[in-house]
Structure formats: structure tokens, C-alpha cells
């Protein structure tokens, strides 16, 4: 299951209070603490580097990122049925800095506007009637966001 589903109640309280999350993985920046004013998030959400291999798994995993549902990714030809609702992910590491990718993955609406179809993977500002067991939870954990950002940053076409 998704790691984020197991967060203790105290963490949810911490979010409401707008202070640092202190989950099992160590200090995390809470979703509502993120500063999007520069269209980029400078610091790692966990203070740790992301893991590329894990990010690649999350990208394809239907129950976590499921990024391939909407994005073509030719680095991952084994993933079936790559969608085209979003732009191709090829070369995304050339077009965006990791800090920008972190902001886009966390909450794309802050970058592309409210109308974008892209879900916010690290935000609690989502739709109404969220499924009971997912209330107060983000789609990805802070570390999973970092892992995806690390993976995306490797997707470069320009040498």
C-alpha cells in the first residue's frame, strides 16, 4: 500500500498547525508550507536526496504516481498504454530544473493554472468528497515526490 496511508494522527495535527512534519522518515515540509512564489521549490521536501530507481517505479505504478497514464515516456517502453493527456516526458530534465519539477509534481496548478488536469501529488487542496480513508493524505509521500523528481531529472536528451 501507499506509505502515506500509514501516517499517524499526530502528523495530521501538525499539518493543520502548519509546522514541520515529523513522520517516520524524519523531518518533512508539510504541503501547506510550500512556497510556490518563484514557480520552484528550492529545498528537498525531506532534506534527503531522491532515489532514481524508486522514482522510476513510482512513475509507472498505477497505485502511486501512475504518471504513464497521461505521459508518453520512451525511456520506459515496457510500460503499456502510455497516455497523451499530458505532454511527452522525454527530455523533461532538459526543460526544467529539479526545483521546478518539484513544484510541478507537488501541485501543478500552482505552475500551470487552476484548469490543468494534472493532479497535485503533494497537496491537501484537492477535490470535494475525498474518499474517507484518504482524507488528509497526499497522493505521494514527500520522499516519493523527491524520488520522482530525481528520476525525471535524469531524462535528458541533450548531451
Amino acid at each position, binding site marked *: 500500500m501507499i506509505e502515506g496511508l500509514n501516517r499517524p494522527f499526530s502528523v495530521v495535527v501538525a499539518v493543520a498547525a502548519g509546522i514541520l512534519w515529523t513522520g517516520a522518515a524524519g523531518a518533512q515540509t508539510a504541503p501547506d508550507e510550500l512556497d510556490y512564489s518563484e514557480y520552484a521549490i528550492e529545498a528537498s521536501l525531506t532534506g534527503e536526496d531522491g532515489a532514481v530507481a524508486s522514482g522510476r517505479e513510482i512513475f509507472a505504478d498505477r497505485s502511486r504516481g501512475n504518471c504513464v497514464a497521461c505521459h508518453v515516456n520512451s525511456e520506459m517502453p515496457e510500460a503499456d498504454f502510455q*497516455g497523451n493527456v499530458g505532454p511527452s516526458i522525454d527530455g523533461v530534465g532538459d526543460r526544467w530544473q529539479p526545483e521546478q519539477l518539484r513544484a510541478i509534481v507537488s501541485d501543478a496548478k500552482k505552475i500551470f493554472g487552476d484548469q490543468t488536469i494534472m493532479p497535485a501529488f503533494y497537496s491537501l487542496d484537492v477535490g470535494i468528497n*475525498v474518499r474517507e480513508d484518504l482524507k488528509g493524505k497526499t497522493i505521494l509521500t514527500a520522499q516519493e515526490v523527491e524520488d520522482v523528481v530525481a528520476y525525471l531529472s535524469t531524462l535528458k536528451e541533450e548531451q
Partner: protein
Amino acid sequence: MRTPGILAAAALALAMGATSLVFAEPADEELVIDGEIEMQTRVEAAEDHPFDEVISGWHYRTEETRALEADSFANPGMLYVEEGEEIWNTVEGSQGKSCASCHDDAAESMAGVGASYPKWNEEAGKPFNIELQINACREQNMGAEPYKFDAPQQKALTTFIKHQSLGEPVDIDLEAGEMQSWWDRGEDLYYTRTGQLDLACATCHEGYNGQYIRADHLSQGNANGFPTYRLKQANMVSLHNRFRGCIRDTRAEFPDAFSDELMALEVYVTWRGEGLSVETPAVRQ
């Protein structure tokens, strides 16, 4: 295509430095069932409609799936039409009646009826779809138990009744009773984002129809083919089942079938597909 979603997509493409967006256009073909019944599957939209052209989901399916619907011997949904015909003629309940006892030959009495639903029901003070009308008939006239949601008999009989309007253009009466306020509520719901994935009906079916989300080729989400035979489920799927499935997929709690929310949504979504032929039983992925 003049929706905010498409503008956002274009902005996104520009922002991402993409040179072109790949649009998988709906198939440019005509649906003629059994070489006889010419179906309206692309019609000009009314002036106040969000689209310029209303397009049946048939155009968004593969060649094989489209062929299944064009041939009533190959269409698996026709088995349910036959089953529905049997139910139509079967006596049930304390009053010793079948549907046919009052309505005789459905080919005559039900011709065009399915194309005009949902319809205002004064007694209930809300719109009725075919399923609710069947249940009201069973309780009030037959002395029979109402069908539970998605009971096989409910799906078969609804499919049979709607099939009597095959080829007729969808045309509902929004002037009757309080239909307009239900339409308004349905419109609100259509544009309301739900769930952890934060998606509204409009996000996908208005902003991105023609595109692929994983293996799903997004259509305009019209209701003219329901109940529809879904190959994925190898079964008939009712409209409210599909509504609930879509809302569930946004990771949201979803309303009960035939609840006021989903009846309002049915009124609105059916209106969006006005002019398209009733295709029941349509065949979809």
C-alpha cells in the same frame, strides 16, 4: 474545442517546449446498424452548448468494437434486449400483470420513449429515468417489488425499453416541472472537481476528449448508448453504474444510484448528448 482545459493543455505544451500535441481524432465513419438504420453520431450542437459538435462515444472506439455495434447479430448487448422482451411479457406481482398487460407491443407503445428520458415526474417531484419509471410501475400497477439497483432484470428491461428508440434522437423536455433547476444542479456537479485526484467530469470529457488516459480513449461522455455493453466487464453497464465508477476513480466517495445528485447529473449529461441517436445497446470498450 474552446474550453479552458484545452487552453491549459496548449499553455502546458508551450511551457514544456513541445512542438505539437498528438490528437487522436474520433473515427470519421458512419454508423448504420444492420445496413438499415442510419444513426446520428455527429450532430451540430445547440448554441448554448459547450461544444460545437456533439459526438457519440462510438467514434472513439476501435474498429472491431465499432463493427460489433453495427451488426445486431454480433452485438452482445442484443442478448439483454431479448431477455428484456421476455420480462416485458412475464406476469409478476399481486395484480397478475406484465408490462405487456397495459402497454401491449413495446415496439409501438415504447417507440421514442427512451429518447425522451429522463422526464419530469410530477407525483414524485423529481425527474424519472427508465429504471425509476419501471420500479414505479412495478409497485403501483403490478403489485411487484421494485428492482434493486443494477439487478440483472432491471438492466435487461431498461435495455429493451431504450432499444425501442434505436436511431431516435435524444430529446428531453426541460420545460416540464422543475427540470431546469435539476439541469442547473447537474451542470454544477459536472464542473465540480472531486476526490484526491481532483477531477470533474468536464476535466476529462470536455477538456481532453480524443486523448488517451492509459488505455482509455476519452470520449465526450454522452449518455445516448446506455445501458451499454462494456467489453471490459463483459456485461451491460447502467448509466448510474458508470457515473459512480468515474467518480470513484477520482478517489472520492460517490453518491447512491438514483440519488438526487446522480439524477441531476443524468438530466444534464443527457442534455449534452441531445440530437444523437439512441444507440442502446451501444458497445464500448
